């Protein structure tokens, strides 16, 4: 008791313990960020072996980007994301509802969960390479389709705009629907069983229950899933990059924003890469703000809420 009353000041240890994190962040994220913003105002690129710049050009890079294909690549990214996200959220909601519904008596729940989550951990670049070989004109998928007699000529999936886009969307769907299912399942299981019991007594059928009880009650986590998925979609790179060999073929219709950034970085066009990064930074900053608001205000999973509540009570 005595030692406690003396109140040794431990606050310096707080600073010491968080120092490595902030030092690392400062060096590897903050300085690069400042550098990126700075060079976005410069003409600075490599032409052959010659380095042009850095010459200050003000907002010229930003204007040039708006006039370039950036908007088109933004739309591409959005399309690719939507193709993957819509089936992902619909299937995930359906599966989550089934898994928690005891009356359906789903057999092998654990097995199904393990299987549907598996693609999430697979290296996206290897997965894309696999799809590339499988869906090529002389690949196994065409061989199967032809031997089934569904098509006479091999289908050139990667030669058509919507073929490529659908493949990217399909891969994103496969990689993320298991993850989303498990997140939504936790949210549905967080709903008090009393509500479901009461609804059953009132003669609610499973459709009514899903649309009028489950869906409204898991809205916070749905919003969270949506925003984090948008941020993930904004970063879409590995799959289309490998699938189309960095070209965004056909005719750059599957080129994403990060692929565009990557091509500027590879060609050492620092000015343009900087300006593009700043655009991306602004968009992701807005999205980060939403996530920040949600993680602070909303109850995303049971444990955090309980812990926070306890903490607030302790503070008085």
């Amino acid at each position: 008791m005595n030692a406690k009353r003396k109140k040794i000041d431990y606050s310096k240890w707080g600073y010491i313990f968080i120092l490595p994190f902030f030092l690392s962040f400062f060096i590897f994220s903050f300085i690069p960020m400042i550098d990126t913003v700075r060079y976005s105002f410069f003409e600075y690129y490599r032409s052959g072996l010659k380095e042009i710049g850095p010459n200050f050009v003000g907002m010229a890079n930003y204007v040039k980007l708006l006039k370039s294909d950036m908007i088109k690549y933004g739309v591409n990214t959005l399309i690719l994301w939507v193709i993957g996200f819509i089936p992902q959220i619909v299937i995930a909601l359906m599966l989550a509802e089934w898994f928690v519904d005891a009356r359906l008596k789903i057999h092998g729940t654990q097995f199904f969960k393990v299987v549907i989550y598996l693609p999430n951990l697979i290296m996206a670049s290897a997965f894309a390479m696999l799809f590339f070989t499988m869906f090529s004109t002389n690949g196994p998928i065409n061989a199967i389709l032809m031997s089934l007699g569904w098509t006479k000529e091999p289908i050139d999936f990667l030669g058509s705009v919507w073929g490529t886009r659908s493949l990217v969307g399909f891969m994103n769907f496969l990689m993320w629907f298991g993850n989303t299912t498990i997140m939504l399942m936790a949210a549905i299981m967080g709903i008090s069983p009393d509500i479901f019991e009461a609804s059953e007594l009132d003669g609610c059928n499973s459709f009514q229950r899903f649309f009028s009880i489950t869906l409204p009650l898991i809205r916070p986590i749905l919003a969270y899933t949506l925003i984090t998925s948008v941020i993930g979609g904004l970063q879409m790179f590995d799959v289309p990059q490998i699938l189309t060999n960095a070209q965004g073929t056909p005719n750059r219709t599957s080129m994403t924003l990060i692929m565009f950034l990557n091509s500027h970085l590879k060609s050492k066009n620092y000015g343009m890469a900087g300006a593009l990064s700043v655009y991306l930074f602004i968009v992701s900053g807005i999205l980060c703000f939403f996530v920040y608001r949600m993680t602070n205000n909303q109850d995303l999973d049971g444990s955090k809420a309980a812990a926070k509540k306890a903490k607030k009570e302790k503070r008085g």
Partner: protein
Amino acid sequence: MKSKGPNVFRSVFAHVTLIILSFMCLFFFYILFVNASRSHADLQKGFSALPGAFLWKNLSNVANDGSFPMFRGILNSLIVSGSSAAICTYFSALTAYGLYAYNFKLKKVAFTFIMAILVMPTQVTAMGFLRLITNMGMYDSLLPLIIPSIASPSVFYFMYSYLESSLPMSLVEAARIDGSGEFRTFNSIILPITKPAIAVQAIFTFVGSWNNYFVPALVIQSKTRMTVPILIATLRGADYMNFDMGKIYTMILVAIVPIILVYLLLSKYIIAGVTLGGVKE
């Protein structure tokens, strides 16, 4: 009471859908395995649903290919992912403990700041990062793929929530009364308590780092330092049509098999960890 009919129908529908989805998830890996076990000539003849006997031959072809040092790549990836997982979880736990257990002026600011950058994509600072490590002489080395993982906001957030729910401050005070220094308290009392959280996050960090492609592709130049995803990408860029297809499938196979093995061993913890994390990477 509800009639039994609709539930039986829904149950059958649910099972059929689940089986179709599971088939979709496993089908591609099965084809990958089948094709990796067949020779190039065999593959040219067409599709087969049954594996061949060529897996070992393909594996030794992959191992002896100097232009795509796959096993060297796996070693590099293991080094990067293992070190990242270790330092990321250790320093995240340290940061979380620092913010949880101590009261200091900038505590609130520091916490708010980390929460604000929780889901910030690394890509937006990639250009400055590339220039920075070039100036530091770390271009084309594995270090810049490892050290920055000290600052991982999402892992921090996970650790922080875990400490909030499972570490009573009285324990820390008891250790102090027993004369334990602050660092020793962290290493010998706090770390063991957070072991479950560290294990889950170590797996996720390892997998994330193993699969990471964007940053390594910008940083690494020489073949001997390439990680697996870059090797896969160079494979795609090469004139693959002249390649031994059996070898290509085998390369993809060895790129993903380590993770599948880890997953099958630890799937229970990994799936439980998905919901605990709350934040997608």
